[in-house]
């Protein structure tokens, strides 16, 4: 067993465990922390996949900013244990099982798909890392317009959040 494979399994297990904890946790703060765990695990996996920039962004932005925002809101609202209501019959009987079914379905397909096996050989060959420099070149050349658009998107989000969270006078 080589290091990458062990690393993969460990991280994969951590990610899945985090997801399961998210479902099973009784308090939202626990769910939030479980999600952070998932993100960390995924960051390592990104590294394994040779995308250090994305791994870094994942930790800095996703885990570091977005999840912190979530935790802030949870603490602000003093979200406690969930009330145990059960109004939706269909969610209980059909939603959850079908969710699992969807999981298995996609997993099954992806596992056996040609793209999965075909690339297996390729993955090994390209063990180099995608350089940040090349990534930024792509970003500012080909994807310039989406880049600028997202900046406007963020602006809109800020404005929206401001308006929404303002107390009614």
């Amino acid at each position, binding site marked *: 067993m080589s290091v*990458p*494979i062990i690393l993969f399994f460990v991280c994969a297990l951590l990610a*899945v465990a985090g*997801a399961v904890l*998210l*479902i099973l946790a009784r308090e*939202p703060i626990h*769910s*939030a922390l479980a*999600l952070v765990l998932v993100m960390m695990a*995924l960051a390592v*996996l*990104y590294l394994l*996949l040779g*995308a250090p*920039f*994305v791994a870094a*962004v994942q930790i800095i*932005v*996703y885990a570091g900013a*977005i999840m912190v925002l979530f935790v802030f*809101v949870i603490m602000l*609202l003093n*979200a406690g244990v*969930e*009330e*145990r*209501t059960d109004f*939706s019959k269909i*969610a209980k009987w059909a*939603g*959850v099982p079908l969710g*699992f079914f*969807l*999981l*298995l379905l*996609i*997993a099954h397909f*992806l596992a056996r*798909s040609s*793209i*999965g*096996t075909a*690339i*297996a*050989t*390729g*993955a090994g060959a390209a063990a180099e890392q*995608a350089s940040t420099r090349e990534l930024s070149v792509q*970003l500012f050349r080909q994807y310039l317009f989406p880049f600028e658009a*997202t900046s406007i*998107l*963020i602006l*809109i*989000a800020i404005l*929206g*959040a401001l308006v*929404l*969270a303002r*107390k009614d006078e």
Partner: protein
Amino acid sequence: MSAIPISWYLVLSAVLFGLGVVAFVFKRNVITIFMSIELMLNAVNLAFVAFARARNALDGLVFVFFVIVVAAAEAAVGLAIVIMLAQHRESLNVERVNLLKL
């Protein structure tokens, strides 16, 4: 070093996505539901990165970049809505928020 088949990453991505769906349907707290969305987005990110590696293309990574940015904006606005909801309804239970009822 021995290569890890891409399909493994994809399966992991599928599993995480499925768990995100289940969480979305199962949980009752609004914030938790929101977090399950994030989980789903993360799973998708993983798939993108895996494919980027497989094709030796950077486009997948660029897309991951954008997904993260958009997730951030969405989280900001969404949480603002959650706060508003909590103020008006005094409850974070999504089943008590039946404003869409006809």
